[in-house]
């Protein structure tokens, strides 16, 4: 188990380095090849040449790329000072960059918005795991029945519906038409019931899409596993059907589900961009989208990095859980 852990940690570390290089590549090399001056995207196209030059100096954009990467990472641990002539901007210790557009450091923006996205992703995940897996298992056990056909048709519709459309529909129907809930976001610290009211539609909308996906995968996996020899053995030795399904089959079914969960949760925590845009939730996804629209590169860079870290971390957790559920994995 320890050797396995070390291998996974090592792989995660390598992945992290690659992601960092890719992120920097996208934001510093691609514009250079494409002939776009990055400095202008930090201050805006209308900025005068002096302002552009000041930003270039402040951010060290004329330095070679490895020096820029090094400065960025030093900033995360010891903070960073941007200086050009007499103009000095400080960015305190966990410095993930500084937005000259909005005149603020990136880190507080991230910590501000992270809880919103985390709440959205975790709440939805609980819902879609319960309903998706249950529907998938039931469908597999009652293969060909009315229930199976119905559930799979709904699931197929679910994966074919874009989330921003179901989101808008649910808003139009439940928040506006029937006036059941007030769908505006309220921070958890202010009011629990308000928060719940604001989150319930995003949760259901997001969970519907993923539950559909999970139901389809669970059904397919379960049916394959029910055909395995060890299930026949378990039945042959007289185990109750409940035990065969609940203990033997479910365990194997959960492994691919868990892998998917890790990836999906990681991606969502890094910003459920579409859901947050549809429901106007002030999460990471909305922050990065605004940043992209404003061409606010430091924010995009910071959020992209955090997102990648979230995905990486989620995958690591899944890998470990994987080894707990399925002992064969540790040897592979």
């Amino acid at each position, binding site marked *: 188990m320890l050797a396995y852990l070390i291998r996974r940690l090592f792989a995660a570390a390598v992945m992290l380095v690659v992601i960092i290089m890719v992120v920097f590549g996208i934001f510093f090399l691609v514009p250079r090849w494409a002939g776009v001056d990055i400095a202008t995207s930090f201050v805006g196209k209308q900025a005068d040449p002096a302002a552009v030059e000041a930003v270039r100096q402040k951010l060290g954009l004329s330095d070679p790329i490895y020096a820029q990467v090094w400065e960025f990472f030093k900033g995360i641990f010891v903070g960073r000072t941007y200086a050009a002539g007499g103009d000095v901007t400080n960015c305190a210790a966990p410095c993930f960059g500084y937005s000259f557009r909005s005149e603020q450091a990136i880190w507080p923006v991230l910590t501000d918005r992270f809880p919103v996205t985390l709440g959205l992703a975790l709440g939805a995940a609980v819902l879609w795991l319960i309903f998706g897996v249950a529907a998938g298992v039931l469908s597999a056990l009652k293969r060909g029945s009315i229930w199976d056909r119905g559930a799979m048709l709904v699931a197929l519709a679910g994966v*074919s519906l874009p989330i921003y*459309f179901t989101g808008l529909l649910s808003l139009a129907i439940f928040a506006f038409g029937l006036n059941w809930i007030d769908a505006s976001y309220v921070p958890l610290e202010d009011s629990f019931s308000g928060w719940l009211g604001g989150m319930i539609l995003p949760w259901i909308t997001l969970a519907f899409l993923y539950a559909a996906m999970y139901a389809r995968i669970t059904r397919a996996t379960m049916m394959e596993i029910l055909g395995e020899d060890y299930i026949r053995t378990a039945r042959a030795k007289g185990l109750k059907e409940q035990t065969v399904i609940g203990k033997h089959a479910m365990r194997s079914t959960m492994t691919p589900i868990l892998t998917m969960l890790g990836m999906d949760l990681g991606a969502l925590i890094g910003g459920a961009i579409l859901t947050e845009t549809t429901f106007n939730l002030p999460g990471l996804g909305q922050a990065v989208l605004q940043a992209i629209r404003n061409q606010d590169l430091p924010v995009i860079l910071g959020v992209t990095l955090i997102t*990648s870290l979230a*995905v990486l971390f989620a995958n690591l957790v899944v890998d470990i859980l994987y080894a707990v559920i399925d002992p064969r994995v540790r040897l592979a």
Partner: protein
Amino acid sequence: MTAPLHEPTAEAAPSAAEEAAVAGTGAKAVQGRSLGRIAWERLKRDKLALAGGLVVLVLVVIALLAPVITNLLGQDPNEYHEDLIDPLFGTPTGSFGGISGDHLLGVEPVNGRDILARILYGARISLLVGFLSAVVAVILGTVLGILAGFFGGWVDSLISRVMDGLLAFPQLLFIIALVSVMPNEMLGLTGSSVRVFVMILVIGFFGWPYIGRVVRGQTLSLREREYVEAARSLGAGRLYILFKELLPNLVAPIVVYSTMMIPTNILTEAALSFLGVGVKPPTSSWGQMLSSAIDYYESDPMYMVVPGVAIFITVLAFNLFGDGVRDALDPKGSR
């Protein structure tokens, strides 16, 4: 795309004598027919898949003929009809978003552009990006997957790690970021054409590992088969084995995964346009229409329903067809 399917997979089939002996008797007889025939006969029985395929066909025709159809209807996707807009609220006059004999699906709020015409033109963007990005993904995935599986060793390790890495990436975010740092003019293209071109490349690039993984796995198991060994012992070169022996047997999984990839890509394109990094106005796209509809979901819900349903029908049709193709080409399938 389907043409290679109809080639008989002679390498994998038993000898002609055996074939004749078992013809017409249960499962073994199925092996005597070509893969394409079996698949087609299974597909013919799958009514839902056929319906999906038919809708896809209709959509392709509609997209190709969009200018002709809008001309026949006497509408232009970019023509303003401000006389149909309530000046007080900015929403269309009349019920259901201004549906009338002239404007079958109503008009947009504020400027009154014909929604049907914009939907028809939007279909072109959706299908173009959906298809071509799948082509990019299939080409990259097939070539790299087959190389990884066939050569093994460090080639395999390298390609596999890259695939793992890409699959673990927060894709939508990277696609948005990449599309947004691209310049507005490149390779002689401007405006929306650049965006379409970039979207095709980027969506295709992030899609190839899904196909690459499957192709690699298949190649790994196929390269140890007797017929490959036979070809090798007859003095066949690597390239011959790769393209003449292995590739025809990879057609089934490749076809399955590419049909399943198109709806995903269509959704990604719609999402990008929804987020404002897709095609640029005035070029119309379904995602973009939904994005503008956010502001009107209370006052003019029809505006959001039309593009939403368009996306839904398209993606559902592709999914139904894709599921059918998968079941039809599944060697373990019983039907």
